[in-house]
């Protein structure tokens, strides 16, 4: 029987654990701040507190989409498993945080606007963007993992990134109902605790998105290596599972 050594803990592992620990600590601080310390907003009331999770989630969606874009471009330049894994992990992170944005936003809107959804430019472009990354994942999930599928997905990953600036500038260009509190002509956050809560939200969600990307890339790279090892085993006649 062949003995196999367990992989030792590396510097990368410690960096990952530190990222997760820091994200958790900041998140705990954020929850405490949002629910116990930050003042309630004058006109919208307590529902405004969704803002401290909604906006950082949108930012994390951008991080995932940017990772998908970078991985896709790099893969088309020089195909490697790691680059494809980065693109795939990025698309997944974009979908997860996009789903959070598209559910927390309407819950806020139900109170602030009186309805859950409207075909506002920012809402519509955000939905379109999430659907592009859903299409990416569906393609990767059902169309196999060959070179052609990977390249086609990379093209889709690049296409998805072009929609991101449109989401961001849609409010300025086409107006609509979506508020612009932080950027542009928005009035900003009036209370220092509100600013701190949003800052912590950005920090916690950014660290979480980075950790999630990291973990997913590792799993995807391992899966690709495993698939290659399985093929090699079959070629060498080692894998006799199909033999009678």
């Amino acid at each position, binding site marked *: 029987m062949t003995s196999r050594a367990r992989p030792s803990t590396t510097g990368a592992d410690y960096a990952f654990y530190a990222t997760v620990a820091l994200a958790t600590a900041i998140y705990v601080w954020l929850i405490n701040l949002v629910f116990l310390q930050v003042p309630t907003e004058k006109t919208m*009331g*307590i529902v405004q*507190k969704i803002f401290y999770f909604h906006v950082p989630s949108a930012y994390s969606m951008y991080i995932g989409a940017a990772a998908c874009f970078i991985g896709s471009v790099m893969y088309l330049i020089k195909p490697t498993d790691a680059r494809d894994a980065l693109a795939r992990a990025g698309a997944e992170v974009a979908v997860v945080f996009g789903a959070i944005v598209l559910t927390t936003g309407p*819950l806020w809107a139900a109170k602030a606007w009186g309805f859950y959804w409207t075909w506002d430019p920012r809402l519509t472009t955000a939905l379109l963007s999430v659907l592009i990354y859903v299409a990416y994942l569906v393609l990767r999930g059902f169309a196999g993992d060959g070179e052609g599928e990977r390249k086609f997905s990379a093209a889709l990953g690049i296409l998805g990134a072009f929609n991101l600036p449109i989401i961001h500038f849609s409010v300025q260009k086409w107006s609509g109902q979506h508020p612009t509190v932080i950027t542009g002509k928005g009035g900003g956050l009036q209370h220092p605790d509100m600013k701190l809560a949003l800052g912590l939200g950005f920090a916690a969600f950014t660290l979480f998105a980075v950790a999630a990307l990291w973990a997913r890339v590792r799993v995807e790279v391992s899966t690709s290596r*495993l698939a290659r090892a399985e093929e090699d085993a079959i070629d060498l006649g080692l*894998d006799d599972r199909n033999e009678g």
Partner: protein
Amino acid sequence: MQNNTQAAPAESAKPADGVTTPEGRSTAFQAVEGGPEQHSGTTLLVEAYAVLWVILMGWLLLVWQRQKNVGGRLDALEQAIDRAAAKLEKK
């Protein structure tokens, strides 16, 4: 401006005991602007917070399933290698 126009049954259709007749019931729905609160801000905040966690936990389960699948394939490959090694030892 409040447009508080709830459909009122016709006076002639209202019997003396106060019970409305079929003819007196409203036949049209009219909107009321600025009506009572439809959504509680607290409930919506809790729902948003719950949704956030449900999505993240659902994703975590998916990642776990994928990792489990990779682990299963790795076990099978290791067993195949072990069987091949055992065959070589017999020879």
